[in-house]
């Protein structure tokens, strides 16, 4: 699992790869903290185009990120989710997140 961060102006993109699961917890948390340490960030995209698997722990991490984003008034979107869309819809994440 790798996470690549792209930051430009007030937008940050986290591009995840392959397996997004419990083993990724610290890496994902550290990446998010790095982004939030830049107070100018107004929107975050999580890019799932290269993610092949997501588990319940990872979904839980997304819910925590959603909470942090709301508190910081940062717009959060999950993008390129085709491969894991059935998992996200299975737990009604389409009602909780902006999916693009």
């Amino acid at each position, binding site marked *: 699992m790798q996470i690549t961060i792209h930051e430009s102006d007030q937008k940050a993109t986290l591009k995840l790869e392959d397996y997004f699961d419990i083993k990724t917890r610290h890496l994902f948390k550290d990446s998010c903290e790095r982004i939030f340490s830049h107070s100018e960030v107004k929107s975050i995209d999580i890019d799932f185009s290269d993610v092949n698997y997501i588990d319940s722990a990872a*979904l*839980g991490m997304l819910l925590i990120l959603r*909470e942090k984003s709301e508190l910081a008034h940062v717009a959060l979107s999950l993008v390129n989710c085709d491969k894991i869309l059935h998992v996200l819809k299975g*737990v*009604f994440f389409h009602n909780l997140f902006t999916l693009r």
Partner: protein
Amino acid sequence: MFVAGLNVSWLKTPFFKHTMLIEDELQIVTLKNCGATVITIDTEKCVQISNQDQPAEKGTAPSVSEKLKTTSLSKELDTAKQIKESTKKIMRVLFSMAQDGGVPKAEMVSSFIVQTMDSLSRNSQAIINLFFSKNQPTKLYNHAFNVMSMSLLVAQKLGYSKEDQQRIGFVALLMDIGWTNLPEKLFVFQSAYTDDEYDLVKKHVDYSLLLIEKGDFDPEIHQAIAQHHERYNGSGYPAGLSGEQIHPMSRIVSMIDHFDGATNGYYDRMPMIPARGLQEIYRKSILLSHEPSLVELLVRLVGIFPPSSAVLLNTGERGVVTQVNWRAPLAPKVKIFYNKKLMPLLRPIEVDLAKQEGEETVREIKSLIDLTLPKQDPAGLLNGE
């Protein structure tokens, strides 16, 4: 017609209660045959067809609307299974999130509660059958769905408003979220708790409240979660409240929590077959651990022989209860797998024990089969899904 009493001993009739709504000819025939010569009718409780959408009054038989199911059991079972699977998934997510310090919110689970309420309204037998399905994972997320779905069923039968049904759904799903701070091994039966383990287990209530308080749930939900281990006779924890001091929603979920724990082997309890689990709850209600009227309602809803019970018939055949018959609790639908010589049938047959008019041999349930005993189910047919 609502029967308020019969002049014959309860033991001599096949009815679970002598106060009941008469809804079909079979009940009238059974009434005629049970030896009663005087039947007392409560005209105020007689149901008009135009009232069919009204919830069942507390203490009465399921309403006439039970007859107006819009979905067959097999179709609703498919839907209910999907609801259960997706609810289990979101609960795994929430429990995982809670371990990382995340806060549960109402919007994360409300859709699943509404879907379960709708399934129960279409055909509640599906949820009942799922509750009793065999080989369920002994996991917190599975328990959460079971307690939520059966608590909603009880709440619907008691005539709770949609808003209060939602509330009881939140309570049931989230009351044990504090367990995520405890060793998982304590949740699944291994042996009786030591005093230290039991002290630790009791803390899950406080842990749950700590998480819930950060969310967006109303005070009534907090109160009901805080009291979900109180017992009607005051023997519970953490405050030792009793009777009406305990929130009505807590009284419902604690009974279902106990029932699911007894049948599926949670906490420090050895799993037991559903009918035995029900007997335990009934015994506890005599000791007033649970509110007796609620236990009565539960027994009426799940039947004396709950779905998935392995039973021996008077014909020597063996089968599994597939569907409760609320109007004749001793005569559920049974799927027969073995003939009287204990030979497996090539094609199992399903019989409705309440509808055997004109049959040469009238089948009745003789006894429950304890599948933990040897040679009761040689082909392993009575223990399946």
